[in-house]
């Protein structure tokens, strides 16, 4: 990185005055030898130091984005000092158990960590030849995830939620329960909060505390009352931390980022202030690339035993999955867990939507030698049957459930059982994968065997009969 750290110069030199101030942007003229993406300290009459970042630089002017707001800055008295490097975070494993603000400054009263190494928070792209393909099944103890949308170590799997849906509870439960089947290695957790309220942050802190993992968590909090541009750096702080823990210290790291929608709004704000041509819903045209520069910082690499598993959380404005934020996220991540308002209304927890949820890495992490040989076929069959349930329900709404044929009625019954027995579970209930699969068979066995054509006869011979017996005994009636 020849350019990353430039030759020393007199960084003490200050530039006095700002030609233009507009929203989060400050334009400084006649600054010399300033680099693209360089950071600067900007001081107003109040003496407060704000951090800024160079967005555009020419031999005539420098456009800076001020991360902590431009309130109180004036054309005349603004002083800018360029620091000769781009944004960096000091990283060390000692940071576990600590809380930082959105720009990486400690806010828990503890000392700043010993700066072993200062890392460029933008990171570098992982060479695809140096990636290990993620394959290790993580048991979350939630049937909807383990059974049908399995998570593997090194995956990026977001939660698509809506306002008022229990995404925080679901992700907290995942943090509490996530384990590899046969290993006892614990996850370290990096938590990045962007623009969420204090009570959300407190909910997570309390949860980390209660489940005894607090000492293994690093938090970066840029809460709702922090300047919104600060949020653009917070996930990069979190991921830089995670990369250090995973790839230098060999830890398995789970990164929670919430709420990505707030992050994207900040990006939109800056884009608008710069007068950029807006894309869909006013978001910048480079939103995809920008999000990718975050989400792609997950995975496993050759030569390190660690891994980064990402679980970003986002709220879909008006529950609209085609909104640019969930849409572009879905185009980058390796699947998505979608929370469903309708299921919540019907008291199903976790309200994980059966059809739109998807884990793309599931296929390589389940089945024989990973979970159980019947897992892939069972999942595929559950999806197919539940899709039919949705169609039958649509029909029932029109013609009335009584008018349905016998088979369709069975499908309704299956749908009910699937939602209430399989999807639905307690917030403290940690189901082993075998239990999840057995419940799956039990619900499928409500349907006639010939309907289950995604499953081979050999598997049906073993599991279908079992399912019938289980379903019968659950109901208490003899076969």
């Amino acid at each position, binding site marked *: *990185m*020849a*350019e990353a*750290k*430039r*030759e020393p110069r007199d960084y003490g030199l200050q530039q006095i005055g700002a030609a233009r101030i507009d929203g989060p942007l400050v334009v400084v003229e006649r600054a010399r*030898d*300033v*680099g*693209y*993406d*360089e950071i600067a300290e900007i001081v107003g009459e109040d003496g407060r130091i704000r951090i800024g970042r160079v*967005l*555009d*630089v*020419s*031999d005539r002017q420098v456009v800076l984005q001020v991360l902590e707001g431009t309130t109180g800055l004036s054309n005349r008295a603004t002083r800018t000092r360029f620091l000769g*490097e*781009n944004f960096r975070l000091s990283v060390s494993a000692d940071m576990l158990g600590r809380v930082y603000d959105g720009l990486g400054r400690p806010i828990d009263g503890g000392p700043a960590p010993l700066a072993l190494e200062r890392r460029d928070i933008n990171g*570098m*792209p*992982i*060479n*695809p*030849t*140096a*990636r*290990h*393909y*993620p394959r290790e099944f993580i048991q979350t103890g939630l049937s909807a995830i383990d059974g049908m949308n399995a998570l593997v170590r090194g995956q990026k799997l977001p939660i698509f939620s809506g306002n008022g849906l229990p995404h925080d509870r679901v992700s907290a439960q995942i943090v509490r329960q996530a384990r590899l089947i046969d290993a006892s290695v614990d996850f370290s957790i990096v938590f990045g909060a962007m623009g969420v309220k204090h009570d959300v942050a407190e909910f997570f802190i309390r949860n980390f505390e209660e489940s005894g993992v607090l000492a293994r968590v690093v938090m970066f909090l840029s809460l709702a009352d922090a300047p919104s541009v600060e949020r653009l750096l917070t996930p990069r702080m979190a991921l830089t931390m995670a990369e250090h823990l995973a*790839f230098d210290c060999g830890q398995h790291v789970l990164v929670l980022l919430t709420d990505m929608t707030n992050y994207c709004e900040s990006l939109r704000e800056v884009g608008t202030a710069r007068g*950029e*041509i*807006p*894309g*869909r819903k006013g978001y910048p*045209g480079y939103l*995809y*690339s920008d999000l990718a520069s975050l989400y*792609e910082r997950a*995975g496993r690499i050759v*030569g*390190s035993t660690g891994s980064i598993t990402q679980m970003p959380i986002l709220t879909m404005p008006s529950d609209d999955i*085609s*909104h*640019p934020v969930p*849409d572009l996220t879905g*185009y*980058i991540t*390796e*699947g998505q867990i979608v929370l469903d308002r309708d299921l919540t209304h019907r008291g199903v927890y976790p309200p994980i939507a059966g*059809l739109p949820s998807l884990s793309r890495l599931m296929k390589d992490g389940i089945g024989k030698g990973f979970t159980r040989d019947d897992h892939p076929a069972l999942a595929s069959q559950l*999806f*197919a049957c539940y*899709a039919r349930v949705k169609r039958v329900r649509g029909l029932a709404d*029109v*013609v009335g459930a009584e*008018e349905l044929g016998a088979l369709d009625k069975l499908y309704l019954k299956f749908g009910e059982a699937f939602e209430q027995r399989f999807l639905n579970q307690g917030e403290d209930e940690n189901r082993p994968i075998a239990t999840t699969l057995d419940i799956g068979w039990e619900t499928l066995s409500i349907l006639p065997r*010939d309907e289950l*054509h995604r499953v081979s006869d050999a598997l049906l011979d073993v599991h279908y009969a079992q399912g019938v017996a289980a379903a019968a005994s659950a109901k208490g009636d003899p076969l």
Partner: protein
Amino acid sequence: MSTSSDSPHVTRISGPIITASGLAAAQMYEVVRVGASGLIGEVVKLNHGQATIQVYEDTTLLAPGAPVQLTGAPLSVLLGPGLIGNIYDGIQRPLPGIQAQSGAWIRRGEKVAPLDTERRWHFVPVLRAGADVEPGQVIGTVAETPLVEHRILVPPELAGTLRHVAPEGDYTLLDPVAEVATAAGPREIALMQRWPVRVPRPIRERLRITEPLVTGQRIIDTLFPIGKGGTAAIPGGFGTGKTITQHQLAKWSDADIIVYIGCGERGNEMTEVLREFPEIRDPKSGLPLMDRTILIANTSNMPVAAREVSIYTGITLAEYYRDQGRSVAVFADSTSRWAEALRELAARLEEMPAEEGFPATLPTRLAQFYERAGSVTTLAGERGAITIVGAVSPPGGDFSEPVTQHTQRFIRCFWALDSELANARHYPSINWLRSYSEYAGDVAAWWGARAADWSELRAEAIGVLQREERLQQIVKLVGPDVLPDSQRLILFIAELLKDGFLTQSAFDDKDMYCDPVRQMTLLRLILNLYLKGRELVQQGAPLLKIQQLPAVPGIVRAKSAFGNDEQAALGRLGAELAAQLEALAGEYRK
């Protein structure tokens, strides 16, 4: 670091687009080196010695005043043995070489040669000194991989008399293996040549498409076939199966060479190809698929300017193998990310945007890309082909957006993916009503020579699916029970077609590749049931009796139960079904 005011230097930096002055001597599209670490860039605009430069690497901390160096050449790729099996970034830097140099991360200013110039290749001449040579002619061959015989060609702009040809032996890419006396003087030919990526390589003439690219994917080969030399788009919202479908095609298509361009997509997907392809055997030769594959990986987090070029890099490599008389298939995942790179660069260039911020040149650029496909006669008079399949990622899965719309004007085969099918895990989620192929007529003769009833079965299957769609409108309102058996038969057969024929799991060992014979057998099985069933229903047999025939559940399972080498078992199932239908017919014959 600052330089005297008139030597070329940077004056402005805005992400990947920079301006520099002192460049009156620069040419359009010339490659430049920027700054102390020599970042690679390309001149994209010239104005009174001020050049606008697109930089292919991260420009963080680059400052005005940094020096700019001209290289004198346009952005080009190196062509020669050693391309196959390799994986490159968008500007043809080999990723394994970068890994060897820098470890797991891609740093800025990486400099690694695209081809190994020290390695020796075994050259076998096919021409002798004294022969007159034309552009594109084969001078000799090199066994590049067990699957690919690499032909060393006279470069396209060169003709004359061979003064010298090297004897059979081992040579590096730099060693001259021939010398040609041309009108402009003697010229040496080595095993390696260069070609600018933005210029299509010349051909002699374009040919009509007559042969399908057999993909082993039923819904494609049977319903929406693509010809060798054709173009197809595969649009779909996130998670509908664009990548998996393209991987399937890259694995199983009967092309000689595969060029797979991961353009602005996930790193893990490229890793997956790298992990899988060496393990999978080509069904024809039994050799690893990697022996015929070139990968270009400019993932979503790699520099956006290099993403823009990656498409051209890929297609130029494809043309080079086409010129050797090969059938090449190019997969680009995703052309939308490429279009977005254009948009991002255009915005930085402060160009006037057209639809949805895309530059007004978007349609032209798409057309130019797809025009590089085709079935052709090469300069040397051989037959070669490039088939292009481009994934399209429309925002919100809505096909009315500019990239999908314009792409549709330049392709002839459209595989529309459908989120609803994908949600129901009906894969491949190609919607049979919205998709089309204009090649069906072109390849009918080829298929007819192998399965006389191909056109007929195809038309029948499409007919059933279309009628089902209309009936479903009624069913949605009143339920299926009011329909007469003759119509419910159509619903039943359509269901069988979907579950037993159209769906094909990429992860089912027996079914991931379905050879043409088995495709036809499976389709005949279902459509026979339809034709016989229709007669039976007419004769008064209740549909239920047909549905309950013991062989019926086996029809849906047949695709996963019997692989390509189990035709006999499939035949037995067909015979059983026929016998049961016959017996049933017996009951209802007056």
